[in-house]
């Protein structure tokens, strides 16, 4: 592969890229003219996904039998 090939490829991808941009632009324009767009705005508060609690409960249940043994085997410090 030589430098020209690389250049041509780059040009090709550029062309494809421009086509896509055109499509998006048209879609946006059409949307604006028709007035049937649903506007989505970002919430002011950050979205908090509370996965932490569920994962931990699973982990606690998994660890519990082993931890019970650990406590019994080291009952001098528990």
């Amino acid at each position: 592969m030589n430098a020209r090939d690389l250049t041509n490829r780059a040009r090709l991808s550029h062309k494809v890229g421009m086509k896509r941009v055109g499509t998006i632009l048209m879609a946006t324009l059409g949307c604006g003219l028709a007035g049937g767009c649903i506007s989505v705005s970002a919430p002011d508060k950050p979205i908090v996904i509370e996965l932490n609690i569920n994962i931990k409960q699973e982990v606690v249940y998994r660890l519990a039998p082993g931890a019970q043994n650990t406590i019994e085997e080291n009952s001098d410090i528990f």
Partner: protein
Amino acid sequence: MNTAFTRATLAFSAAALALTGLAAPAFAQRDPAYEAARSSGKVGEKPDGYLGVVGGGDASVRKLVDDLNIKRRALYAQKAQAANATLEEYALTAGCLAISRTAPGEKYMTPQGAWETRTSAAPIRDSRCP
């Protein structure tokens, strides 16, 4: 004859050593000072798996708690690694169980951070406790 005797003696000693080695941890009891601090409510179990000093506490109680917590932390770290869990996860699990096994009259900390005296009723524990 002599060799056989020696061999038998050695085997017996080894067996005796193995037995005491195995039996020792099961019989490990709390230090009397620690036991007294627990039953008098100077020391309590916390939901995070460590001991806490209830109220101010004098220097000797604080030292006792620090020493035991260092030992607990080392144990949690070792066991957590073996169980593919984090130190905090393992400690929280142990905390759930340690609070469950407090005797009536001993202190424990609720998830809200308040010290409670254990009664015969079930203790207030973290919602994630088994």
